[in-house]
């Protein structure tokens, strides 16, 4: 291995990848982590930090790995990021911190910051010391709605500042999208549970099966707590609006992934049903589309097909996920737009009708445009279709939080500090931005936490 390249992550066998939900890649061992950490120049003016939405002191924790002081590395990392094992796995580091790494040139790969974060995160989970516990020394009570990345990050920072934090989750399981959305093979659920239990040690109280706006009214919550953070995430799955989306065998990515991830429908004796389709077509090109198609493959769809309107270069998913999908045998079909979903019997899906498309150049927003080619329609047969084109805001927010200001689509309006128009009500994550990355949501949660801490300090 030359020093020009990142130390690779080992992977489980292809057979295991195609047929089980085991995690695809294996965390660095200590030797590899130290070797990778020694590639870091420990720059004084560390540009990588600017690439991180939560501003982790990257050279700080990496230099501790290089000297085998993993406990200190964990301490530094966790000061900035309460969920390092999760972020080390799902952050698009290649677009953020690693992109800014000075090593990053045509010939040299950046330091594998994400892999090192994952190593330290996993180390901290297995070598956890109880000295993290801090008693709540503040008289302020904070309600956090939802338990996804934005909420967890907000809860983490508020709890560390000594505030009493209660997190309200509608589902029976914590983690939001980390739990229902991202598959086991990319983010093991026991790990999500472990990182969340670290928050419990900080004194955060979690309340499951509680839908704010229904189980507890917003008014009651607002009266009982000094500040409220809304981190309810993205909402209703969006459909394309083409004929046939109502057919049996057509799923939103959220439904398909929730059945498999949250409800464990892939296990043999699972109580929640899932149909093991023979030939699935996923419509979309983001990380959720790739999670869906790789899930379909593992459930026996041979082939599992992903169809995207633009070309390979424009796929919004992480390059690592695209590479994994291709290795596993996912068939990626580009430059085709779906125009209808077809059924032989009027009930079940039997195919997708596409029209071919071609690229027409980059517009002023930097977006590659495309146009469809007239009379180029064709049908691809399938027995399952997963629509993975994003989400619209959940109407419960708007209906139950009467005075909360949202944009015309229903996304919550906040200022740069995460404040909404209602006094002491804050928001962040996908409920504000629409579907975005885990780390962007965590960044928003963190910013809101600091605003909450400062706002309440002033009222003291």
């Amino acid at each position, binding site marked *: 291995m030359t020093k020009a390249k990142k130390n690779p992550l080992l992977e489980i066998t292809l057979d295991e990848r195609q047929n089980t939900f085991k995690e695809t890649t294996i965390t660095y061992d200590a030797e590899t982590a130290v070797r990778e950490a020694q590639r870091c120049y420990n720059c004084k003016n560390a540009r990588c930090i600017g690439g991180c939405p939560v501003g982790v002191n990257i050279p700080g924790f990496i230099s501790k790995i290089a000297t085998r002081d993993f406990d200190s590395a964990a301490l530094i990392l966790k000061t900035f990021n309460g969920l390092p094992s999760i972020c080390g796995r799902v952050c698009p580091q290649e677009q953020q911190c690693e992109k800014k790494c000075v090593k990053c040139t045509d010939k040299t790969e950046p330091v594998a910051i994400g892999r090192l974060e994952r190593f330290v995160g996993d180390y901290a989970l297995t070598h956890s010391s109880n000295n993290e516990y801090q008693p709540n020394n503040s008289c302020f009570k904070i309600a956090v709605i939802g338990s996804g990345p934005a909420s967890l990050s907000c809860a983490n920072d508020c709890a560390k500042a000594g505030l009493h934090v209660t997190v309200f989750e509608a589902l029976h399981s914590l983690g939001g999208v980390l739990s229902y959305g991202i598959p086991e093979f990319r983010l093991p659920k026991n790990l999500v549970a472990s990182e969340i239990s670290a928050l419990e040690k900080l004194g955060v109280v979690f309340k499951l*099966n509680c839908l704010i706006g229904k*189980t507890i009214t917003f008014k009651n919550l607002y009266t009982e707590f000094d500040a409220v953070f809304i981190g309810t995430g993205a909402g209703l799955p969006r459909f394309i609006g083409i004929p046939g989306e109502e057919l049996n065998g057509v799923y939103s990515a959220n439904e398909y992934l929730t059945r498999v991830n949250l409800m464990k429908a892939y296990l043999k004796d699972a109580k929640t049903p899932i149909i093991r389709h023979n030939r699935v077509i996923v419509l979309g090109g983001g990380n959720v589309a790739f999670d869906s198609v790789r899930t379909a493959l593992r459930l026996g769809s041979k082939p599992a097909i992903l169809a995207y309107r633009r070309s390979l270069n424009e796929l919004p998913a992480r390059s690592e996920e695209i590479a994994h999908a291709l290795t596993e045998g996912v068939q990626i079909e580009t430059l085709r737009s779906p125009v209808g979903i077809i059924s032989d019997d009027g009930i079940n899906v039997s195919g997708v009708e596409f029209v071919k498309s071609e690229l027409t150049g980059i517009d002023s927003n930097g977006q590659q445009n495309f146009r469809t080619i007239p009379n180029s329609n064709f049908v691809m047969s399938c027995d399952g279709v997963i629509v993975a084109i994003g989400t619209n805001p959940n109407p419960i927010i708007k209906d139950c939080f009467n005075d909360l200001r949202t944009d015309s689509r229903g996304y919550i309006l906040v200022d740069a500090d995460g404040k909404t128009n209602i006094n002491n009500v804050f928001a962040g994550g996908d409920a504000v931005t629409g579907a975005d990355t885990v780390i962007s949501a965590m960044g928003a949660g963190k910013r809101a936490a600091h605003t909450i801490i400062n706002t309440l300090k002033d009222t003291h």
Partner: protein
Amino acid sequence: MYLIVSKKILSQDIVEYTIQAPDVAKTAMPGQFIILRIDSDGERVPFTICDFDRTKGTIIILVQTVGATTYKLSQKNAGEYISDFIGPLGNHTDLTMYKKVLLVSGGIGIAVTYPQAKALNSESKQFDIIAGARNKELLIYTKELGLLTNSPYFTTDDGSFGHKGFVTDVVKQLLQSKTYDVVFAVGPLLMMRAVYNVSREFGVDTIISMNSIMLDGTGMCGCCRLTVNGEIKYACVHGPEFNASSIDWNQAINRSKRFKEIEQQHYCRILNND
């Protein structure tokens, strides 16, 4: 964990459970539902809130055994716990704009009709109730309905109790002889559509309650979607009640059968192991 306070067997296949769930009881309203999981590897299944007691903090649900989970639930006894119980979900029945209401229930649909009737009774509004079932054994809450209105109408397919025939027979008779502002119909999809087909001939709106397949019940998964006036809507957050004329019925009926085969196999496995 949620305590089963009491269990009443109403017929061979129908059990009434009173569950301790103070948070849910505090805000529950007629027409809303809950989702429960029996244990840590259970599926999420929606049930209508049939009644609630805010003082005692309890919710009543009716469970009809139709598959593996409802069978397993029906084996639970008072004093035992169920793992998860979330609600109240969905929008509640809105009766404010109606003065004369006809309530129609088919089978287990009584779980929605009963709290609607209770609400109408407490507001001293004029209403009639028609409750139907396949036979006398499956016709439940007859006494309770009798306490809310002087003359509830009952029908059974086999004539073992009340009028022999379908609820639609009585719907037609009543619409011919009386005037109503609205019909609320709750029961199996085919029954609700049949009621709608009768009432629309009389120019009376029918509101139905969709019992779609659901996972989260909070608008996240899109599993319960249906086409309403040509637009995709989600029964869990936009419903469960809709004007019957706005629904694409064939589609809703097809979608209700999505997992029938798998669920039947699962149920058979459970019965054989028992």
